[in-house]
């Protein structure tokens, strides 16, 4: 029996080509910037500056990791900035009332995960668009944060908690260690496990995933719960760093988190993205901001550059998609 005629169409690109190219490009930009700043800006490579950068990256980095999970499912979570502030205020209130750190920690994080879970319920069960649901939650949480904080910062005089944010472990700020541990855990789950694979599947073809037997409902609940939980952790870290609960903390941070994830290769269409990419995206923004500050540029210049890079990266992503569609 003759075999089927061979498909004569030119073979497609190997699987990781675009992702690898994007990530290498990103890494390349980071390295080039680092070299430029090392030469041009005195103090850039000093250990104190490195530590400052590591501390400064932690909060947005953790938010961006949570956002990555959600974006890969072709969803979005706009509530993470408000969640950060909300959890920060709760923690400050708890500590100021003398509640022990571990108890307060667990309680606040449980609330964060539950609120994220609630986002997921609305999005899956009520089939509401993630943009709208999480936008609504953004307002609700910020409102409660302001009420609980009564418009004021809340001090809590608990030095063990604040020391965590200021201290180092093995020469690296503890804040950064938290980011690294979370990043490693997230990368393991997202890229190596079956559940992680299902996250990509849902973003790639929701109906197809459902038909393949993937529990889309449970996975939706899970990714938004993860996003909420990580936002809660970020809130705790920021509160520790500022040594007080700030009802305005985190305002606008959701956009920084999304930008970092997209710079790192996540596509808002879903099914693209990686934890490493997101980490590099956060690193890129941090180095850019820090270097330009040291060179005495207006801090707004960094935002302009970041915005331009974001548009460029999204354009490349869009171009990639168009190119495939015409193939």
């Amino acid at each position, binding site marked *: 029996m003759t075999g089927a005629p061979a498909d004569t169409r030119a073979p497609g690109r190997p699987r990781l080509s675009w992702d690898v190219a994007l990530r290498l490009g990103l890494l390349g930009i980071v390295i080039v910037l680092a070299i430029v700043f090392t030469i041009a800006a005195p103090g850039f490579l000093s250990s*104190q500056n490195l530590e400052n950068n590591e501390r400064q990256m932690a909060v947005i980095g953790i938010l961006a990791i949570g956002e990555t999970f959600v974006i890969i499912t072709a969803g979005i979570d706009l509530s993470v900035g408000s969640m950060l502030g909300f959890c920060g205020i709760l923690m400050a209130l708890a500590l100021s009332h003398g509640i022990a750190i571990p108890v307060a920690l667990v309680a606040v994080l449980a609330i964060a995960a539950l609120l994220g879970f609630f986002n997921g319920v609305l999005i899956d069960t009520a089939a509401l668009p993630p943009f709208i649901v999480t936008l609504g939650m953004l307002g609700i949480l910020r409102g409660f944060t*302001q009420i609980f904080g009564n418009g*004021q910062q809340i001090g809590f005089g608990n030095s063990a908690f604040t020391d965590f944010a*200021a201290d180092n472990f093995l020469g690296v700020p503890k804040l950064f260690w938290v980011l690294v541990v979370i990043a490693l855990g997230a990368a393991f789950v997202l890229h190596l496990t079956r559940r992680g694979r299902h996250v990509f599947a849902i973003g790639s073809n929701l109906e197809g995933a459902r038909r393949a037997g993937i529990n889309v409902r449970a996975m939706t609940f899970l990714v938004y719960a993860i996003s909420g939980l990580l936002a809660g952790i970020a809130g705790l870290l920021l509160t520790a760093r500022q*040594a007080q609960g*700030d009802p305005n903390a985190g305002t606008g941070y959701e956009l920084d988190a999304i930008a970092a994830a997209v710079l790192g290769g996540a596509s808002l269409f879903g099914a693209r993205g990686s934890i490493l990419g997101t980490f590099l995206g956060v690193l890129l923004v941090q180095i850019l901001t820090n270097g330009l*500050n040291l060179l005495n540029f*207006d801090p707004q210049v960094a935002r302009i550059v970041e915005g331009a890079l974001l548009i460029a990266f999204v354009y490349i992503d869009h171009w990639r998609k168009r190119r495939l569609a015409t193939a």
Partner: protein
Amino acid sequence: MTDRNDTFNRAGFIGLGTALGALAATGGALAAGSGRSIADLKFLFIVKTVNSDYWQTCIAGGKAAQEQLGLKALQFTGANSEANIQGQIALVEDALAKKPDFLVLAPTSANALDATIDKVDKAGIKVILIDSSANTENFDAFLATDNHAGGMLAAKTLAEAIKKKTGQAAGQVAYVTFLSGVGSLTLRDQGFLDGIKAYPEISVVGHQDAGGDQSQKPIGVVADLLTRFPKLAGVFADNLYTLEGAATAFRENHADPKKVSLVGFDPSTKLVADLKAGAVDGIILQDPYQMGFGGVMYGIVAAAGINVPKFLNTGVTAATPENANSTLTQALLNPMTQRHFGFGTA
């Protein structure tokens, strides 16, 4: 500090004296004219935002005046943020409909509120502006901090702290603004630069802008200043958020309090603790309580048809580690519990 006492005494005397004297007249004027007494007056009190320590203190001052005199406050309110201009305009326009006798207002923007203020004034409602100015002339009184003077006081406080630690008022300093283009902040920065000129050995080597971020960015920009200038002797932060951020940056960068000094505007519980511990060298205190209290008082007097002085400087004071526990500083820091009528005995 003597600078503050004079101003306070003068302002307090004028303010209080005018108010007390005028109250008698007011009571008389009102009673004679319309059969109304002070307690019949209605007013609205609109600040920039209620989500802030500073404005809560201001409101507390207003409420203290209201309660003591038994007036009816129609509302103590503000928008949801200091940047929400439209929100405040909406609140003021609602005020028109309620027909109060006077309005105490802290305009979020110098220009944007002008038209609305004019409308209020034309409706016969007395307008008392507090804290920030407007460009229109159609108001009855303006009670505020002299921000330029505050900046100069900060410069003086910083220089003296440096001198105490290093033996002379010399070295590199830098300043951080919360947001470029905000009138009160620009005045403070300018005042700082003008005040530092009195110390020729001190040079201003850099400044940063926190871009309006209240959380992490101030920490980052001050940390970067410390990195850029390892020999930095002093930093001036022109508002609460930049001062908080600077204090955190100092702590994280293990800035040596024996070598670097920090002075800035506006207190919080944590900053006062830092002050007492010597981690912060000076906090410039405004007097939001006075603005609120005096605002209501002036409103009452103006509503009685008396011409009040158009400008009242509510003054600035520098709180330092040395005077942190003085009666005056404590009164300014805890107006609700420790503010007395009368003169401070600092």
